[in-house]
C-alpha cells in the first residue's frame, strides 16, 4: 500500500476544473484501477469509459501526464513516483463529462468510407503473406488515440476536411485487400484530406497496438494518390492508353 496523488478533470464542455485526490493503491495497479477505486470510495459519479480492461476494446483512452494512453494498460509503477498524476480527457473531441468525450465524429467519418467490395469473379484463396500487412491494420481497436494526437485535428481542428490516422489505416486495409475492387483514392485525396498529414508520426508513437500507421498505411496511400493524380508520366501514360 502506498498513497498517490491524482489530478483529474471534472466537469463538462461548459465548465470544469482539475480536482485533486489522494488515494491508497497497491502493487500492480493500473490507472483505470485507481479511477475505479475513486468511484467506489470517493467519487461515484466520476465519468469514464471502460470495457475489457485488457487493452482490447479501446474505450478507456485519456491523457495521462499529458500523453494519450489507455488507462487500463498504464501501470502506476511506470509513472514517476511522488509526483501528482494528471488525468485529462482527450483534447481533440468535445468533452461530455469528466473523462468521457464525444467521439461520434469518428463514426460519421467511418460511414463515408466505401466498404469492402470484393471482385465479382474473386477466388477466395490467398496466402498468409498476402494478408500479413492488412492484418496489421485490422488490429486497430479504435481507441482514437491517434486521432487525439494528430495535430491536423488537435490543433488545426480540420475535422470537416480530414479523416485522421484511424481511417487512413482502415482505408489502407481495404485498398490492400487482395480481392477488393473499390477505388478510394479520389476520396482519400479530397474528402479525407490525406495531403494534410505531414508525416510527423505522432500517431504511430501513441498506437497501443503498435501499428506502423505512418510507414505502413499513410505513406503507401500517399504514394498511390501521387501516382494517380500528380505524376506527369503516369498521367501521360494513361492519356495515351486511355486507362483510368
Amino acid at each position, binding site marked *: 500500500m502506498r498513497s498517490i496523488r491524482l489530478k483529474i478533470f471534472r466537469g*463538462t464542455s461548459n465548465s470544469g476544473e482539475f480536482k485533486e485526490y489522494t488515494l491508497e493503491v*497497491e*502493487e*500492480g*495497479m*493500473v490507472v483505470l*484501477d485507481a479511477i475505479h477505486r475513486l*468511484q*467506489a*470510495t470517493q*467519487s*461515484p*459519479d*466520476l*465519468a*469514464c*469509459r*471502460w*470495457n*475489457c*480492461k*485488457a*487493452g*482490447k*476494446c*479501446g*474505450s478507456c483512452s485519456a491523457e495521462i501526464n499529458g500523453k494519450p494512453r489507455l488507462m487500463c*494498460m498504464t*501501470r502506476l509503477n511506470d509513472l514517476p513516483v511522488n509526483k501528482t498524476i494528471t488525468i485529462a480527457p482527450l483534447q481533440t473531441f468535445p468533452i*461530455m*463529462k*469528466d473523462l*468521457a468525450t*464525444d*467521439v*461520434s465524429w469518428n*463514426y460519421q467519418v*467511418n*460511414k463515408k468510407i466505401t*466498404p*469492402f467490395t*470484393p471482385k465479382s469473379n474473386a477466388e*477466395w*484463396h*490467398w*496466402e*498468409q503473406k*498476402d*494478408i500479413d500487412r*492488412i*492484418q496489421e491494420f*485490422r*488490429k486497430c*481497436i*479504435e481507441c482514437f488515440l491517434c486521432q487525439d494526437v494528430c495535430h491536423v485535428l488537435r490543433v488545426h481542428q480540420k475535422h470537416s476536411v480530414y479523416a485522421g490516422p484511424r481511417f487512413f489505416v482502415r482505408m489502407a*486495409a*481495404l485498398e490492400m*485487400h487482395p480481392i477488393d475492387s473499390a477505388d478510394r483514392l479520389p476520396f482519400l485525396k479530397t474528402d479525407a484530406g490525406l495531403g494534410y498529414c505531414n508525416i510527423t508520426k505522432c500517431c504511430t508513437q501513441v498506437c497501443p497496438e503498435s501499428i506502423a500507421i505512418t510507414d505502413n498505411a499513410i505513406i503507401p496511400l500517399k504514394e498511390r494518390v501521387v501516382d494517380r493524380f500528380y505524376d506527369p508520366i503516369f498521367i501521360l501514360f494513361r492519356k495515351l492508353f486511355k486507362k483510368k
Partner: protein
Amino acid sequence: MDAKYTTHEFDVLVIGAGGAGLRAAIEASANGLKVALVCKSLLGKAHTVMAEGGIAAALGTVDSRDTWQQHFADTMIGGNLANHWQMAQIHALEAPDRVRELEKWGAVFDRTTDGKGNINVRHFGGHTYKRLAHVGDRTGLELLRTLQDRGVHQGIEVFMECTVYSLLKKENRVVGAFGYFRETGSPVLFKAKSIVLATGGIGKLYRVSSNSWECTGDGFALGYLAGAELADMEYVQFHPTGMVWPPSVRGLLITEGVRGEGGVFRNNLGKRFMFDYIPPKYKDKYASTEEEANTWFQKVIVEGRKEETVKERKPPELMSRDVVARALWTEIEQGRGFEHGGIHLDIATRRSAEDIKKKLPSMYHQFKQLADVDITKVPMEVGPTCHYMMGGIKVDPETQGSTIDGLFAAGECSAGMHGSNRLGGNSLSDLLVFGRRAGLSAAEYSKKIKTFEQIDESELDQLNHEMNRPFENPKGENAYAILSDLQQVMEKGAGMYREEKGMMNCLKELDQIKKRLEKVSTEGNRMFNPGWHTALDLRNLLIVGEAITRAALIRRESRGAHTRIDFLNYSESFSKTRVIVKKSAQEMQVSSENLSQIPKDFEAELIAKNILNEVVLNQLRGKIAAH
C-alpha cells in the same frame, strides 16, 4: 401520445451490439425493415472483442475428416447432453456458411500453409479435430469489426451508450422498450413490433471474472421481468485460465489458444497433472501418458503433420473447460498451487519465443505490460475465472423466439445451445448462426404487425420514477459496496462448487442485499453517472443471481459446469430434465420440464459411424457409473 418522452418507432429493435445483436440487426435490415440497434457502450466495444481463440466451424480445411456431425457430437458431449440437441444440430450445420459469409464481408482470417490458401483452423478444448477459424488471438475483434462495418452501411440506426431499463408489453406481446442515454441520463422510448435481446452475459455477478462492466445480466432480467421463461440457469462456466496476479487483473482471460499451441499445466511439484483428471467420457480421446502427449505435440504442433497420420492422442490439457477448471481448482485447493494461488501454464519451454509472439501476440503483451512477465521465458500463473453463462432465455431452437410473443433472444443471453458446458469457439459461431436466425424471425414477425401500439404514459412515469430512486433515497450506502458484497455472496454460495446448505444461505443473503438495494443512494445527477448506472444494473444482477442459485438447488446432480459436492454423480432422472425459472406474483417460480432428446435413429446413425459412443452416452445419462 404527447412527446413527454423522446420516442422512436422501429420494426425491429435489437438490444445489445455484440456479435449476436449486430448479426441479428444486419439480417433484419437485409429483409427490408427499419431496424434500431441499442448498445450499452460505444459501437464496436462490446464484450465480443474479448473472444480470442476463434470460431468453431467444421470447414474441413485442415483436417478433412471433420464433419458437421462430429461438431454436433463434440458440442453435445462437451455439454454433457444437457444441450437442446436441435440447436446444436442447426449450429453445427450452419456455422461453416456463417464463417465464409463473414469472409465475404471483409474478415481476414489466418490462412493454411499447404499452398491452397484456405482459412486456417486450430485446436481447441473438446473439439475432436482442428476446427477454429481464427485471426491470431484477436478473433472476436475481427468478427465484431467486420459486422460493424457491414451494419453501418446497411442503414441500421445505432443508439450508442443507451441502456434499456424495461421491456413494455401488451398482453403477451412486447411492444417497446424504455431506457436512458448514458450521456444525458434522459429517458427514451422505443416502440417496436419485435425485439431481439442480445445483451451477453452475467460475469459481473462474480468477484473473479473475465467479463466487463457491461455484463450485468440485462437481457436475462429484462426477459424475466417481462414474464419470459429462463432455462438452464444453473450452468455458469468458469474458464480454467484467468490471470491471478497482480490483483487488479485477477480474472482477466488467457486464451485457450495457449494450450492449443502446446501450453501445459504444472503444479508446484513440477507435475503435469492433467493425466490424473481424464473423465471416462474422454478416456478414448486423450493421451494417457506424458510421453504420448509429447509425441503428439511434436508431430502435430511442431512438425505440422496431418493429424490423420498420427496415432497418438492429443494432450488432456485440451479437454473441455469444465473438466480442466475443476482439475485446476482441485490442485490449488489441495495446496499444489503457486504463490499467488494459481497453477503454472507453460508455453515458454514448448515453443520458440518467435512462435509465441506470432501465434499469441495479445497474450505476450498482456503479461508483459500488466504483470511484468515474459511468457516466452517463464510460465504464466493462472486460475479459474467466471466466463460464460450457458443458461438464459428459453428459446425455440429454430426461430429463437422466447415464450413472449415478438421477443427473441440470441447469443449468450439465450439458453440451450451449449448445455451444461460450452466448448471454446462455439460462442462466436453461436452468435453468428443464431443471431442471424433471431434477426430473420424478428423480421418475419414484424412484417405481420400493422401498427405500433399506444404506450400508457403512466407506465413510463412509473418506470422513470423507479430509475430516479437512487437520487431520492436519503444518503446511505453506494452501489459499489453492494455490488462487491453481492459478488462475494455468489462466489461463496453458488460458485464453482455448490451444496445445499451453502445455497440456502446464499438465498438468504441475496434477500438481504435486495433490501439494501432498495435504499441505495447516488450522488450527483443523471448525466454520465457510473454510480447511478451501477445502482440500476444491480437489479438485473440480483435477479440472475437468485435464478442461478434456485436452479442449482433443484438440480441434485453434477453435470458440466454445475458441480454439487453433495451430489457428485450424473443422475438418470435429471439427465432428462431442464430447470425453468419464471416470474410469478410472489417469488421466483422454479420448475422442471422434459429436455428434448436426440432422435433414436439419428443417434444410432452417429453411433454406427463411430461419432458418438454408446457407453459415453449411457454414462452421461446416469445409466452407468461415470465419476
